[in-house]
């Protein structure tokens, strides 16, 4: 399932996938895979993404 909340949070911060990837210390393809729902990140990476985007885990990764 696509993670549109992550994509919109990234866009709101005016960050490209590459920018976010550099902040989190991962490859651009990994950020792309998470947004597409092709990859389930570990909690460590989820936290790094949340910190980079000033969001909580619930806001970005909790499925409702």
């Amino acid at each position, binding site marked *: 399932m696509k993670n549109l909340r992550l994509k919109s949070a990234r866009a709101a911060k005016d960050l*490209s*996938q590459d920018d976010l990837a550099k902040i989190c*210390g*991962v*490859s651009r*393809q*990994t950020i*792309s*895979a998470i947004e597409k729902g092709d*990859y389930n*990140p*570990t909690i*460590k*990476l989820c936290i790094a993404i949340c910190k980079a985007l000033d969001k909580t885990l619930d806001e970005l990764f909790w499925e409702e």
Partner: protein
Amino acid sequence: MNIFASTGAAVGLLVGLIIAVIILKFANTNHKLVTEYDERQKELRGRGYMFGFYAIIIYECVMLILGIGKIPLPVDDYLIHFGGILTGVTVLCVYCIWKGIYFGLNNDRKRYAVVFAVITALNAVPVIRAAADGTLVKDGQFSLEFLNLMILVMVAVIGVTLLVRSAADRIEGEA
């Protein structure tokens, strides 16, 4: 038995290993020997190693079957073993590239392109020379230069995969 040939090959492999270490240090942005990967890349590389391992098993089974049947091949034993190594490496590289792992986090793409160009040139020279001399095949058997040709084929397969995948990646963009 030719102990000199085996010793020469062992020394050649050691020299190759030292050169590989120097090249890796040159090609990585932080000049570390080990390439760094993120968690997704590590996971997919693990799967790539698994498929590479299976490919080598299948290759060796085929060679075993041919060997039991004493079916002659136009290559020496060392080329058959080298073919197995190349098969495994090719499967690993193609799988990883196809899954979007072009480079590690600390790889300098331009420097790697230079390394690939040098590898291609170093392997193309003996092949072209042997082809020009007509010595690529001697007495119905492929000569040592066939080893260089095998490497060129591997580099070509990896290169084509990289081009196709990166083109597809560009088209997808940030979708």
